[in-house]
């Protein structure tokens, strides 16, 4: 491999340097019909799963075909998306917040050709490349984080479990039979890069063992006071220990106080926390961000722990599928998962879903815990 210079000169790093120019302006890449009708859209309709039609004040129409995408995406795949956009959409396309990709055209016939084209393409391994769907009262693409593909703190993988869950609920990506939209998200650790705490169903990687302590390296790898300060439960303290006959500065963890959040590890690499047997996934349900009808709310933990079961994650996927089905069978039209659970009461939620309520589901973290205990004699047997 021969080094190819871009023109950058390491001897004079400031020469011709361009900084702080930010992103491109958003309207540079608007398809013409979008540019023309900015702020002048009148209404929209979902013509079929994955296909939207927006109508402007002057009668202009734009048809959007939405396809599911993997978040981890190769440039070969992106170039294929570009080929399709060049062929059908004048070279424009966009991504959604939930990692879907949208193609826009201005007439119905073009939309149908585009839709069929997208739905026809498959990977060599057999899966769809660009499945059309993800609209309305269905289940859209999952937002998720990095997992074992690229992060240092995960308690579980991200892309793998997401692939398996989406396989299990694929029909509902392509259909709109749910009472209301169902949003699913996965975060591979409680850092929750992906706003899991407000999804209808949130899958969160959790550790179950306190960190190990690498006395040999603690003093060299860490700012010990930072690790001490990082712990939300004050489980970490500085100590001096004998290591190889020498007194070294290190760290002690009061294990019964630890809730395995990994904050200390983030501050100090000498406190590794991941563990093949200990780690796994918690399932949270009932969160939402929309202000529609009821207020936004956090998801609640309904399954405290599911072991990591690569490669197909059967317990996880079956449980998610089961929750979705019980919700679909019981909730009212427009009722989000969390609103349904609150209306029938969480006792009924556990009864209907058959999920086991255990002491792990009672909050015990600081003040917020108190607000979740029942202070009433109104409850259901």
């Amino acid at each position, binding site marked *: 491999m021969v080094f190819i210079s871009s023109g*950058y000169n390491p001897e004079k790093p400031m020469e011709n*340097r361009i*900084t*702080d*120019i*930010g*992103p*491109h*302006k*958003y309207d540079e890449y608007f398809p013409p019909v979008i540019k023309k009708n*900015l*702020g002048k*859209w009148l209404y*929209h309709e979902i013509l079929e*799963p994955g296909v939207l039609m927006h109508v402007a004040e002057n009668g202009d129409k734009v048809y959007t075909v939405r396809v*599911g995408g*993997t978040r981890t*995406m*190769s*440039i070969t795949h*992106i170039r294929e998306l570009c080929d399709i956009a060049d062929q059908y959409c004048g*070279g424009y*396309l*966009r*991504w959604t*917040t939930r*990692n879907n990709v949208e193609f826009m055209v201005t007439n119905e016939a073009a939309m149908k050709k585009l839709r069929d084209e997208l739905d026809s393409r498959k*990977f060599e*391994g*057999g*899966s769809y490349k660009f*499945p059309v769907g993800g*609209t309305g*009262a269905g289940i859209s693409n999952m*937002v998720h984080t990095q997992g074992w593909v*690229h992060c240092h*703190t*995960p308690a579980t*993988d991200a892309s*793998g479990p997401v*692939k*398996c869950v989406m396989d299990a609920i*694929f029909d509902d990506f392509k259909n*709109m039979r749910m009472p209301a939209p169902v949003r699913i998200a996965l975060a591979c650790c409680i850092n929750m890069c992906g706003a*899991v705490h*407000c999804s209808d169903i949130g899958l969160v990687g959790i550790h179950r063992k306190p960190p190990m302590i690498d006395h040999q390296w603690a003093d060299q790898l860490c700012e010990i006071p930072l690790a001490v300060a990082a712990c939300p439960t004050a489980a970490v303290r500085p100590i001096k220990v004998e290591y190889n006959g020498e007194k070294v500065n290190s760290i002690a963890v009061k294990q019964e106080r630890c809730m395995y959040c990994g*904050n200390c590890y983030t501050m100090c*690499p000498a406190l590794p926390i*991941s563990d093949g047997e200990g780690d796994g996934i918690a399932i949270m349900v009932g969160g939402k961000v*929309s*202000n529609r*009808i009821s207020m*936004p*709310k*956090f998801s609640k933990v309904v399954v405290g722990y599911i072991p*990591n079961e690569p*490669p197909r994650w059967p317990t996880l996927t079956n449980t998610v599928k089961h929750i979705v089905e019980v919700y679909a069978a019981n909730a009212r*039209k*427009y009722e989000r998962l969390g609103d349904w659970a609150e209306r029938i009461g969480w006792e009924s939620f556990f009864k209907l879903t058959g999920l086991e309520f255990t002491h792990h589901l009672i909050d015990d*973290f600081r003040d917020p815990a108190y607000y979740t205990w029942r202070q009433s004699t109104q409850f259901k047997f």
Partner: protein
Amino acid sequence: MAKHATPQLDQLESGPWPSFVSDIKQEAAMRAKNPKGLDYQIPQDCPDDLLGVLELSYAEKETHWKHGGIVGVFGYGGGVIGRYCDQPEQFSGVAHFHTMRVAQPSGKYYNTKFLRDLCDIWDLRGSGLTNMHGSTGDIVLLGTQTHQLEEIFFELTHNMHVDLGGSGSNLRTPEACLGQSRCEYACYNTQDMCYQLTQDYQDELHRPAFPYKFKFKFDGCPNGCVCAMARSDFAVVGTWKDDIKIDQDKVKAYVGGAIRPNAGAHAGRDWGKFDIQAEMIDRCPSRCMKWDGAKLSIKTADCVRCMHCINTMPQALRIGDERGASILVGAKAPVVDGAQMGSLLMPFISCEAPYDDVKEVIEKIWDWWMEEGKNRERVGETMKRLSFQKLLEVTKIPATACHVKEPRSNPYIFFKEEEVPGGWQRDLVAYRKRHQR
């Protein structure tokens, strides 16, 4: 021929949902073939090695990425995240595998030229793998080596005129819903405010000076498509003040069944005939709508602008004309101190470019948070520790009943000394004259 056997990952190629394993494999095959005859600047087989190390994680159920590693481009504190594999001998192609964040255009519209140019850079100088997009919103280029960072930055800025995004304790790449570009619900131009503030705060974005990360997000209406009020420290959520506009003929068309309710979102099941009373009037959270069989009326003073009726009849009902946004502050995920939802700080701002009123609030919050915030404390946690009143005080926003769901139920009220007649300095001798010991 694949470099590593991946029996577990291979099972993720079956099933209908797009397989990231198939995709990485196709990239590995493409790089092996090298149809353009590129002189790859990082190992050609890095996608193979990424699959290899992931397979190892699938076997051991533990990650193989090391913690940390400070790398970046000259003069920037954010935009690059150092990443090293903890099995570099086995997987030399990904021994160093840094992430670069690239600023995305707000609303995430692209043309193919931009994307192809980006792919070309990443073909030559990176792994050929990306995240489209990261959780914060930016384009994430996944995996390159240290000596390529400046080269990539040079090409991005000189040839593509685009910058890196944020990472670390700074302003993170702001994100907006597509807003007015394609949504009739948008109460302001989310993309424009996002773009403008991103440009104005480039320094904060690239040079960490904050206690911890800070995120702006912009939703055009209370439907919240980019989840601003759940996952940003500073959420701007569109709303309006006056009447919802009603087209009575169209209302009748919905009632009569000529138009599908909710824009057709429930088409996958037979929910029966649309029942305006049950589905709309009775579900209005503030019970402020009435349908007398011929006319729909809304008592605007009681409406909390939840969007339900508008979502249900997008052709008949429309957001009001006096538009702007509410600002909510302090949302965050659990780390460190538990999850928080954004709390309403400004009930209404008008959202006119250049958005000076918004910036004024932002800057006051920053000044306070940089002064008072502890290391790794999000502004939501600082608010919780030092009180919402403190936030009102530093932003000079008068307290209103909008700020609370309910008034406090404990009377442990902190008064300022100047709020109490006579102050706090008292005369014990005089007191003792009135009260014996």
